[in-house]
Structure formats: structure tokens, C-alpha cells
């Protein structure tokens, strides 16, 4: 039995996901959270195996949220379920420690498959292309590139800190900054007065 927590701010998406996951044998969708403030109590109470996380949420985005979820012990697997399927999230998602990345346009079978693989301890991430790396390299500072490289190679945080001779908290802090610089900006409508 796989216990799944859904975090999505759109009611149609929450309802759709819950229904689709409930229909699949072996899956148990828990209470769906609509916002960051809903998430923490539910997460602490239900202890899910997998969190299916929308990228764009009011307040924090899915990447920032993933970093915070991953600090929990034991941390659930996190699947970023996003409408941005064009690859622009691939590297930021890697940095944020996302375990799986599935586009919202993908069929349900792909989602089922990804969730099952996450529970088996695998990761479901798209490959990182040369262009993506070049683009990220252009937007990051020279001292951030080694961290990017080691993160993509799955080097543990402590080892990165030891290699660079800096504190682990400083590494974590830099990774937060890199995510902020690389992530997809979603332009919200301007306030009209």
C-alpha cells in the first residue's frame, strides 16, 4: 500500500488526482493539501510515502517546499508534478532534491509508474542535456559550478562541504540561492488598482 499526499492549489487538479490515484490498486491518496500552510499538519499526521507536489503554489514554490520536506526524518519521496514540461525545471529540480519529475500532460499510467518506482527507491528524472548545463552555467557564478556538478553526480551534502572546505549549512544555503536563480519565474498578474 502506497500512501500519497497531494499538494496542489487548484481544486480541479486535486480532485482529479485523488480520483485517479484512488482508482489504482495499491494506492492510497491521503488528504490533499491546497497550500503550504495545509501541508505541514497533514504531513506530520499522515507520514506519507510519496508527496505529489505542484510546482506553482501560492507562497512558496514546489522546489523550496521540497527542500523543507526533505529535511524531515524520515523524508518521503517527492514527485514534482508540473505543467512546465519543457525541461526548464530539470536542473533546479535536481538541486532541490526532487526524486521524480512528471509533466501534468502525461497520462495517468506514467504517473502510476513513476510513483511505484519512487517507492522502490528509484528516481524518475529526465536526462540533463548539454544545452541545459550550458544555460545553467551561464546563469551561475564560478564558485557555484562545482556544487552544481557534484549535486548532479549525487554527491552527499557532507562530502560536497568537505571537498570545498566549507560548512554544510553554507553549502545548503548556496544551493537555495542557486535554485532561486535557476527556477522558472511565473509572472503573476499585476495588481490593478
Amino acid at each position, binding site marked *: 500500500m502506497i500512501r500519497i499526499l497531494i499538494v496542489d492549489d*487548484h481544486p*480541479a*487538479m486535486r*480532485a*482529479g*488526482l485523488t*480520483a*485517479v490515484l484512488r*482508482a*489504482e490498486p495499491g494506492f492510497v491518496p491521503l488528504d490533499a493539501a491546497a497550500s503550504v500552510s495545509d501541508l505541514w499538519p497533514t504531513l506530520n499526521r499522515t507520514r506519507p510515502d510519496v508527496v505529489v507536489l505542484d510546482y*506553482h503554489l501560492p507562497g512558496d514554490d514546489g522546489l523550496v517546499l521540497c527542500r523543507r520536506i526533505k529535511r524531515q526524518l524520515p523524508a518521503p519521496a517527492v514527485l514534482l508534478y508540473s*505543467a512546465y514540461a519543457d525541461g526548464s525545471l530539470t536542473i533546479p529540480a535536481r538541486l532541490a532534491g526532487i526524486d521524480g519529475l512528471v509533466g*501534468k*500532460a502525461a*497520462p*495517468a*499510467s506514467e*504517473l502510476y509508474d513513476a510513483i511505484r518506482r519512487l517507492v522502490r527507491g528509484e528516481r524518475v528524472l529526465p536526462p540533463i542535456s548539454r544545452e541545459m548545463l550550458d544555460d545553467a552555467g551561464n546563469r551561475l557564478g564560478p564558485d557555484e559550478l562545482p556544487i552544481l556538478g557534484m549535486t548532479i553526480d549525487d554527491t552527499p551534502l557532507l562530502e560536497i562541504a568537505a571537498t570545498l572546505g566549507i560548512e554544510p549549512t553554507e553549502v545548503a544555503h548556496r544551493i537555495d540561492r542557486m535554485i532561486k536563480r535557476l527556477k522558472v519565474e*511565473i*509572472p*503573476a*498578474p*499585476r495588481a*490593478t488598482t
Partner: protein
Amino acid sequence: MTSRWMTLLLMTRLLAAAVAVLLLLVHRVTAYDLGLIIATIAYSAGSLGILTAVPRLQLSPAAWLVDCAAVLALVVATEDWRSPFYILMLTALVLPSTGQPFRRAIAWGLAFALAYLGVALYTGLEENTLESAIRLETIATHLMVPLVVVLALAYATDVLERLRDERLRSERLAVESERQRIAWELHDSAKQRVHAAHLVLSALQGQVDGDQAQLVGHALSELRAAGADMDTSVAELRTPLEGRSVERLLDERAAELAPVSEAKISVCGTVGELPAHIAAHVYRIAGEALTNAVRHGNARHVEVLLVRDRSTATIEVRDDGRGLPPIRRPGANGLRSMRARADTIGATLAIGAGADGRGTSVVLSLSTEPDQGSAKP
């Protein structure tokens, strides 16, 4: 704006001509009053007729000069600076006051007052005139009135123009924020629903078979297409051209197309600044024409010419390829979407054979006059 001032000129000049004719009929001013009446009618009707028939002249300093000279000549003909033509003379200031920037209008008014002073001196500002307080006041008033008229009209024009600019700016901002809002709703609400529907339906896919599976598959592909359409619309609504110029984007498009084609592509000229949403349509029309020429025209040379003059922007995409196919390619809706875009921005689109009968020429032209309402909302 010009036509509004032309109406003012029309009304004041007709009125002033009537006053002049009446004065000439009531008082004997010269020995040839009848000739002057005929000259007044001829001048008024002639000048108004010509200015109405050739609107270009309404903004031509040379035409203003001729008009002022003609009316001053009428004043000279009455042999007195306190002429029955004085008010008619003032009407010659309407177009110069409203058709040019504020400072130049004032300079024009000053020059006119000086010319009038010259006329006054010529027609006999007797030696003793300046000694008489009343006469002094009369000539001062006669000199001041043209200046006041010019000042008032030029000020009004200036204020109206500022108001119009301000209104255009706030309209643009309102349109811009509305576009952002629509893009947001499309992305945040409609697209999420499409995704949810797609997801739910896709869960059915493995559970049905035969005809039903085919129906589900069809519905799924429609939903995917709807999602893709929404992505395109959101992208177009959000940052039409990301602030880049039409010619630069066409240059970039040409560079993208160059490696996959035999044709030599050149882009030259500029269309200058256009409002963002108009520029977006212009780029997409020209980009489509360019792509067509390179992909389907079998051309050796493709030229994109951009021209901007005072009131129009023109873009021509021409090639020396095999020309338009006699029958439309099935599924080709490129031309239709180009025409629809041209309609949206009130531009004209001419698609035909090249100048020497070879190849294809696509000419897009649009008016850049702001008050002609070149864009439909």
C-alpha cells in the same frame, strides 16, 4: 486633430468673410469696393476649397505662408490697417497655431504681428498717430490680438495633444494588464482543468477496449492539443516580443532558417517603434511569410524589406522562387492566419506574384497614425 482645426478655420473664415463683405457694402472704403467683395469671396472660397481638397496642405508651412500673404495683400488693398479684413486676416493664423509645436507657433505669431506692423506702416501710420493715445491703443490692440489668438490656439493644441498621449498611454497600460490577467487565468485555471480532465480520462485508457478505447484516445489527443494551444496563447499574451524590435527578431528567424535552406536571406530596414501587441502580430505575419518563402518557395534569394515613413510602416517579403501554388496545399492555414492577424491590427496584406512575375511578394502595410484607430480592441 487636424480636421477639427480645419472645421474651426472653415467656420471663422466664412463668418469673417461675411463680416468683411457686409462692412464693404455698408461703408464706402475704397473706390473699388465691388472688386474687393469679389476678391474676398474668391479668396475665402478658393482657400477653403483647396485646403479641403488637399488635406496635405493643411500642415504645409508653405501653404500657410501663401495664405497669410494673400490676406495681408487684401489688407494692403484697403489702404488702411484698420481694415474690414482684419478678422479675416486672423483666420489665417488658425492652421499655423495648431499645426506645429508650441514655440514655433508663437514665433509664427510674432512674425505675423511684425508683418502686420509693416502693413500698418505702409498703409499710413501717420507721424502724429503715436502722439494720440487712442490711436496708440488701437494699433497696440491690433498688434496684440494675433499674438493672443496664436497663444490660445497653440496652448489648446498642446494641452489636447498631451491629453491624447496620456490617454493612449493609460489605454496601453490597461490593455497590457488585462492581457497579463487573461494569461494568468488561462494558465492558472483553464489549463489546470484541461490537465485534470486529461489525467482522469487517461486513467480509463487501460480499462476499456475496442471502439471505446479509440474514443478515449481521441478525447485525450484533443485535450493535449487544447493544452498546447493554451501554452501558445499564454506565451503570446505574456511577452509578445520581450521588448525586442521586429527587425531584430526577423533577423534571428532568418539566421535560424539559413542552415536548413539553399536560399540567401537578407533582412534590411526598420519599421521603427510600434505598440507591443501590434509589433507582435507584425512579426508573426512577416515571420510566417519568411518561413513560407524559405520552406515552400524553392527560392534562391529571399529579401525582407522594412520601411517606416511618417504615417505608415511597410514590410515586404519577396522571393524568386516558384511562386504561389495554384491550388492551396491541404492543411495550409498559414495564409489564413496571416490575414486574420492583419485584420486584427487593421493592416492591409497583399500577397501575389513578384514584380517581374516570378516568385512571391507579401506586402504588409499599416498606418501608424495613432488617432486612426489602427488596432481593433
